[in-house]
């Protein structure tokens, strides 16, 4: 690429180039359009398959935004931004999976249907 390489700074956040912004934008448009098309056009017969595909597209798009718009790499701030992100992601996974898991089981065990079997 002819643009000066900003990764040479050593610390601080790296910057994007016109090419990287346009690449990120094009990828985001495609990754947004496909899930909307899948849901609005009732393309897949199975709801489960549609849900999983839509979630997969979202996960990929988050990574695309992180790389092309937020310019995340392992070198920024000597790796501390990446470390903070990894720590946050671990917390997010614990919070989301934990809440959904616990509350699903609570709902399942508190169904009024089971009341007849209670002493």
């Amino acid at each position, binding site marked *: 690429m002819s643009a000066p390489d900003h990764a040479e700074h050593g610390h601080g956040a790296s910057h994007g180039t016109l090419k990287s912004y346009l690449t990120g*934008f094009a990828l*985001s448009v495609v990754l947004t359009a496909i899930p*909307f098309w899948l849901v609005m056009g009732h393309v897949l017969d199975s709801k489960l398959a549609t*849900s999983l595909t839509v*979630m997969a597209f*979202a996960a990929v798009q988050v990574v695309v*935004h992180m790389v092309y718009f*937020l310019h995340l790499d392992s070198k920024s701030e000597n790796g501390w931004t990446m470390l903070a992100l990894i*720590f946050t992601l671990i917390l*997010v996974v614990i919070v989301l999976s934990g809440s959904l898991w616990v509350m699903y089981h609570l709902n399942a065990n508190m169904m009024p249907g089971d009341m007849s079997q209670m002493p």
Partner: protein
Amino acid sequence: MDTPAFSKDVFYLTDEHEHAEGASTALGFWLYIMSDCLIFAMLFAAFGVLGGNYAAGPSPKDLFELPLVAVNTTMLLLSSITYGFAMLAMEKNSKGATQAWLAVTAVFGLCFLGIELSEFAHLIAEGATPQRSAFLSSFFTLVGTHGLHVTFGIVWILTMMVQVGRHGLIAANRRRLMCLSLFWHFLDVIWIGVFTFVYLLGVLR
């Protein structure tokens, strides 16, 4: 010897050693973004747990209009790329172009907010208020918090347009634009989660 005994053992810095001004701002702001991310994680968790509790009220299928959400998503995505153009203009030291792209970004942000507010007004007019069901409470909290962030983002963009106009692209303004860039793109990342989990999966449910 009249000096106190501890004087030779205790060592401490009387002054902070020198840091360049703003040297740690980028990392500090990133940590703020991460803590904001945790706020949204809690709200997503609440929506995930409560999103199916309609209390015999309307469900996402009855309420949400996906074409409108698609337009809204487009607005936010366009504002992301135009903010990128503002940052590129900043790196080229082009003051006018930076301000112009910031203005375009603010317009797209306002379009997003306008569509979202009209959607909220429509829902409330139909009786789908936050008080109607746990699903609607968690929906308005999650999407409303995101909308509030966008509102403050627009206030910040307008502030930076004035700052750049007054002082030019000085180091402090570049640093602030860098932080705003993180903030604005982060809001788009959160919106990916919102349109996927709230709208698309909600309509599928």
